C-alpha cells in the first residue's frame, strides 16, 4: 500500500486510456507522454497492468507500507528514496516504510512512477485513468491510500540501467503534419509559422494555449474531430493544442496535427517554455 503524504502539484493515476468512447464525447485520457509511459511499462510492467502515477511539475511524497520495485520515467525531478537521491529509468527496490520524495522537475514536466504491482483503482469504461467527472477524483489527495494486488513474490530486478534516449525532453521542435484547415492561414503566415518561436501561455491535461501574431477573420465552421496533438487557431491567433483530456470535437480551424513524437515533446513543456513547428513532410495537403 502507498500512503500519499503530499500529493505534489498535480498527480493522478493514468493508464493506456479510455479507448473507444469518443463517440460519446469521452476523451481518451491516459498518460500524456506515451513514450515515457511505454518505457515504464517495459521496465516494470506486467502484461495486463498499465496503471501508473503521472506527476506534474512537483511530484508527490509517498510512503510505501509494503515492499515493491519502482521506476521513474519521463521528466527528471529531484527524487529521493529516504535521503538517497535516485535517478530515472532504473528499477529501485523499495522496503516497507521507505519514503519516495519527488520535488521540482529539473528537465521536462511530467514524470511517471511505475511499480511492479497492479495498482487497484476504479475502472470506468475500461480505464483507471483519472478524469473528472467520469472518475470521482481528478488528482491524488493527501492522506489517500493506493492499494495494489498482492502477488506472491516481489520481483527485485537488479539495478540494471536501461539505455534510453531522453533527449526529447530538451527538444523544442514539434513535428507536425498540415491539418485539414491549414489553408485558413495567409500564404505569408503559412511560411512564417515554421520560422517563429512560440511561447506557451498555459497548459494542463486538456491542452496547451500558445499565443501567436496570426490574427484572422473568424471562420464559421461546424465542429470537427479533434485528437491529442491537433492544433486549432482561434480568430485572435491563440493556438490551442489538444491534450489527452481535451474535447473530442472542436470548432476552430485545425491547422496542424502533431506527430506522436511531436506530442511527446510538447507534453514535457511547461508554461513559459517556447516551441517551434517543424514540417514532418513537405507534401501538399491533402484533398484526394
Amino acid at each position, binding site marked *: 500500500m502507498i500512503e500519499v503524504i503530499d500529493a505534489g502539484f498535480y498527480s493522478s493515476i493514468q493508464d493506456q486510456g479510455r479507448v473507444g468512447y469518443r463517440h460519446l464525447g469521452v476523451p481518451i485520457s491516459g498518460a500524456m507522454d506515451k513514450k515515457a509511459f511505454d518505457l515504464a511499462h517495459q521496465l516494470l510492467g506486467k502484461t495486463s497492468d498499465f496503471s501508473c502515477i503521472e506527476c506534474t511539475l512537483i511530484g508527490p511524497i509517498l510512503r510505501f507500507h509494503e515492499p515493491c520495485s519502482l521506476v521513474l520515467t519521463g521528466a527528471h525531478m529531484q527524487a529521493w528514496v529516504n535521503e538517497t537521491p535516485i535517478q530515472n529509468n532504473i528499477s529501485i527496490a523499495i522496503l516497507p516504510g521507505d519514503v519516495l520524495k519527488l520535488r521540482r522537475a529539473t528537465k521536462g514536466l511530467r514524470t511517471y512512477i511505475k511499480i511492479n504491482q497492479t495498482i487497484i483503482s476504479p475502472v470506468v469504461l475500461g480505464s483507471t485513468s483519472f478524469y473528472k467527472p467520469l472518475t470521482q477524483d481528478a488528482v491524488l489527495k493527501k492522506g489517500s491510500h493506493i492499494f495494489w494486488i498482492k502477488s506472491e513474490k516481489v520481483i527485485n530486478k537488479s539495478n540494471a540501467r536501461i539505455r534510453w534516449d531522453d533527449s526529447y525532453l530538451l527538444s523544442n521542435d514539434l513535428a507536425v503534419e498540415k491539418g485539414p484547415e491549414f489553408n485558413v492561414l495567409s500564404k505569408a503566415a503559412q511560411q512564417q509559422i515554421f520560422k517563429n518561436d512560440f511561447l506557451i501561455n498555459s497548459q494542463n491535461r486538456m491542452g496547451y494555449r500558445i499565443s501567436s501574431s496570426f490574427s484572422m477573420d473568424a471562420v464559421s465552421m461546424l465542429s*470537427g474531430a479533434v*485528437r491529442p496533438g491537433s492544433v486549432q487557431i482561434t480568430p485572435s491567433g491563440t493556438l490551442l493544442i489538444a491534450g489527452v483530456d481535451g474535447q473530442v470535437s472542436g470548432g476552430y480551424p485545425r491547422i496542424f496535427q502533431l506527430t506522436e513524437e511531436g506530442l511527446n515533446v510538447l507534453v514535457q513543456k511547461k508554461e513559459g517554455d517556447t516551441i517551434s513547428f517543424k514540417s514532418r513532410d513537405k507534401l501538399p495537403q491533402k484533398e*484526394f
Partner: protein
Amino acid sequence: MYTKQDFNFTTLGRTLILGFSYQHDDRSLHFIQVLWTALNKQFNKQLEDSTTTFNSINLFFKEDFQIEQIKPTVLKTIDVLGFKKTNPTKLWKLPVCTNEQYTVDVHDFFNGDIQRVNAYIDRFLSLEFHLVFYGFLPGFPYLGGLPSEMAIPRKATPSRITQKGSVAIGGDQVGIYPQDSPGGWNVVGNCPTPLLDFTKSPPNRIEPADRIQFFKISTAEYSEVLTAIENNTDHPYINPYPHD
C-alpha cells in the same frame, strides 16, 4: 441523400476524415449512421475509435496508414451499402423546465420582452430534433433541427458556469449540458433527466439519427425528478422510453 461523389477525404494524423455536407433530413442522417456502422465493421481491427459530427465520419486508426489504400475500400463500402429508407428512427420525449430561472439567457436575448420569450419557447417545444452526435463533454448531445430563424448566436463572453441539464442554443445547434461547465451557449430550459449512465454498457440509449422532442414540466415536477434521482427512486421522467 448521398452518393459517393458527395464525400471527400482528409486526414488529421492517424484519423481519416470522411467529409460531406450536412443534410438535416431523416433519411440523410440515417444513411450516415448506416455508413458509419458499415465502416466500423469494415476496418474493425485497424481502428481504436470512430466518431461522427455534423459533416464528417472520423476513423481513428491505430497505426499510420496510406490514404490511397483506404480510399477505395471506403468508396466500395458506400457502393454496396444496403441502405433501406424505411428503417424508422426512434423518438424520445424529454422533460424540460422553462421556469424563469432557467431561461435568463433567452430573456436577455429578447431584452426582457416576455411575449417574444414565450413565443420562442412555445415554438421550441413544438419542434422535433435529431441527435446528430455526442461531443464537447462526455454525454453532450448535439441536436440538429433548429430552424435558422430561431438561431441565437453564442455569447460574446462564455458564462463561467452553465448548469448541468441546461438545454442550450449555439447558433442553430442545440445541446444539453451533462455537467456544470463553462459554456457560451444560450440556455432555453433545463432537462433534469440524465441521458447517459457511464456505469452501464452501453452508457447511451439515445443514438445518432434518433429524434428528440421536449415537453414542458412544472418547477414542482422538476424538483420531484431531482429528488427521485438523489434518493435513487423511480420517476416516470427519469427513464424515457422510445416512441416509434
